[in-house]
């Protein structure tokens, strides 16, 4: 794993460079907006990556709360299974199908519902207790970075196209609210030392995640100033533009994965160090050095891949 990081970092840098070249040089120029439309190749993938990270934060927070209470875990597991079953079956019922917005296929809804359940159980399988909380805080922090990029690049596109930097449009307002919720999540994590903080943060994260589908579907269900969806939702896009958009998303997703990896390691090592320091402070000189250091991160280097 230690060797894989530099290799992945180089590959990601190459992919990001190539994707940026494609966006700036190769992508066709949009007829009405001109070159400023190329902001879209950074704006949209950043938004999708932020949503994905907030979704990971949601799953990790849910699993963290479930793990803390075994009886609640059983209930939550069954609720997730029920959501997957209902989500997989309901879109094929004709009455429900009629309610779906144009371009939203029943198969997409069913796949999403099943994927939510699968990812929920995968997160629970590969991350346990403390690492769930670490995963949640990692995903939230990197997600806020990507969401900040969305909120900066959006107005830079809007100014030349709409003639205004910002409008209190539903999509824009909900995105700002989403950003504020996760910033408050990080502020809570940063300034609260209580043992209950991870639980409180997990609850906040679950409610915060409810804003993600609202942001995503706001342009499907309501008339907004924000452009309509280019994929699904009745929208259309030049295949060359779509190809470059997806390439940029892949590049940003790989970049986000590496940044999360770094942040995750940092959080684990910080917690290990503070636990070891607290243990030593408690036991003082009465603790034999070898036992005090067993399993502690004192001898690990920050670039190491000791735990997790």
């Amino acid at each position, binding site marked *: 794993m230690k060797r894989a990081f530099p290799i992945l970092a180089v590959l990601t840098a190459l992919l990001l460079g190539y994707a940026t070249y494609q966006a700036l040089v190769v992508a066709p120029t949009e007829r009405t*907006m001109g070159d400023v439309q190329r*902001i879209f190749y950074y704006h949209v993938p950043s938004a999708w990556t932020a949503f994905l990270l907030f979704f990971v934060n949601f799953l990790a927070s849910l699993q963290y709360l479930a793990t803390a209470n075994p009886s609640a875990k059983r209930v939550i597991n069954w609720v997730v299974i029920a959501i997957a079953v209902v989500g997989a079956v309901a879109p094929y019922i004709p009455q429900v199908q009629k309610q779906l917005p144009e371009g939203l296929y029943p198969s997409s809804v069913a796949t999403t519902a099943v994927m939510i359940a699968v990812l929920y159980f995968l997160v629970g399988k590969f991350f346990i207790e403390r690492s769930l909380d670490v995963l949640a805080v990692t995903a939230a922090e990197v997600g806020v*970075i990507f969401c900040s990029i969305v909120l900066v*690049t959006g107005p830079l596109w809007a100014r*030349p196209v709409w003639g205004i930097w910002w409008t209190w449009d539903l999509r824009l307002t909900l995105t700002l609210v989403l950003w504020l919720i996760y910033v408050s999540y990080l502020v809570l994590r940063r300034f609260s030392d209580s043992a209950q903080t991870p639980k409180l943060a997990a609850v906040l994260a679950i409610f915060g995640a409810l804003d993600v589908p609202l942001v995503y579907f706001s342009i499907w269900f309501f008339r907004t100033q924000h452009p309509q969806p280019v994929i699904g939702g009745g929208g259309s896009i030049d295949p060359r533009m779509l190809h470059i958009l997806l390439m940029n998303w892949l590049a940003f997703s790989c970049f986000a994965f590496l940044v999360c990896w*770094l942040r995750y390691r940092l959080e684990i090592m910080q917690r290990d*160090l503070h636990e070891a320091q607290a243990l030593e402070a408690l036991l003082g000189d009465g603790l034999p050095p070898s036992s005090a250091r067993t399993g502690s*991160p*004192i001898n690990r280097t920050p670039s190491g891949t000791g735990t997790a």
Partner: protein
Amino acid sequence: MNSIKFLYAAYIATWLIHGLYLGSLARRYSRLRREMKDSDKGR
């Protein structure tokens, strides 16, 4: 409409935000390394 400056501003802002965040991670790593050394010396 001179929109090209907005395009460059958006791309520069994106990498500036990522750069600042990576810089803050690097700072936190070096602070942690220092804390580890201090912790080792204290023994």
